[in-house]
């Protein structure tokens, strides 16, 4: 199932992208209450957004970004109906991506 929910809305020339990603963003500092052992760090390290062949934004994250992270940014140059793609990779090498159309 997709871990990314993404919306892209245009106003004038600027597209505002909002995304919500399902991810634990574990810091590695929290102990499991049952076992007493630290829950290993598991967090998204990089998020990229592409518009056609253009890389619009690259985010580099540490584990201090909140669980089920949210992200919003803006860029110019898209047209309604254009596809944008958001992808992420975490510290374990897991990844996912999703696309949406600019509305």
């Amino acid at each position, binding site marked *: *199932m997709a871990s990314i*929910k993404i*919306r892209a809305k245009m106003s004038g020339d600027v597209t505002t992208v*909002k995304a*919500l990603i*399902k991810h634990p963003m574990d810091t590695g500092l929290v102990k499991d209450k049952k076992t007493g052992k630290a829950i290993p760090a598991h967090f998204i390290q990089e998020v990229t957004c592409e518009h056609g062949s253009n890389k619009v934004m690259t985010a580099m994250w540490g584990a201090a970004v909140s*669980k*089920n992270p*949210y992200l*919003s940014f803006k860029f110019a140059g898209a047209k309604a109906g254009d596809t944008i793609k958001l992808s992420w990779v975490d510290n374990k090498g897991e990844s996912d991506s999703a696309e949406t159309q600019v509305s």
Partner: protein
Amino acid sequence: MKKLLTIAATLGLISTASVAVQASPQEDLKEFRAYFAERFPDVPFKEYVNGVYAIDQASREQWEAIEEFPPYELNIDNGKTAFNTPFKNGKTYASCFRNDGDGIKQDYPYYDSATGKVVTVESAINDCRSKNGEEPLKWQKGEIADISAYMAYTSRGNKTNVVVPGDEGATAAYTRGKNHFYAKRGQLNMSCADCHRSNAGNRIRADLLSPALGHTTHFPVYRSKWGGLGTLHRRYGGCNKQVRAKPFKPQSDEYQALEYFHTYMSNGLVMNGPGARK
């Protein structure tokens, strides 16, 4: 603790009257609403569905920032998929509910005089599962909360409409819930009413206490503290533990009765779940 009760006593707001006299549910509701209207004269009735965010601007702004893209959307998606996935026997949840389960959460909980039990959305979900040969889901979080969230979502905008018919069984369940709400418990010897009625809008350590009016409209709830979605009974258990009382089991008679009374007190307020809270 003593300070809290002193404040409450000074405000003359510890109401023992409603426990001593046997008022009808309708009279209780009228008194409940009147109490909060007097406590917070600037808060319009329909705003109570937003809890503390109706009475505190600073936390409201943070809540609105979260509502830009609330984490419970992921739960609604899961819930919708789960709701529409057929059981092993080919039937779906829709077959167990009025209107295929769409936009009906405002009618819960209700009293089933045939079984003598209060029926909550979560208990109805698991009843549906057992009727169709499936194992029950765990009560407090996970899939049951997601399905409840989906059902809450399709019910958004519908006014809470809990019915307490005049028969003995329903009235007894309602009264049991009401007594739980007003009874002191735990090592801290506090009742639900102490915090959420007498001290609504005041602080307990760093937390702002929400008014009980409108409490149930936004459940199930995604709490930042939980980092996830949980049901109303999960919260009841947490609250009982916070006053150092032994919690009851989720979907126990006690919590079902409490939910019956608690939700009735929000009749007329629109459903706005699932919600996001701190």
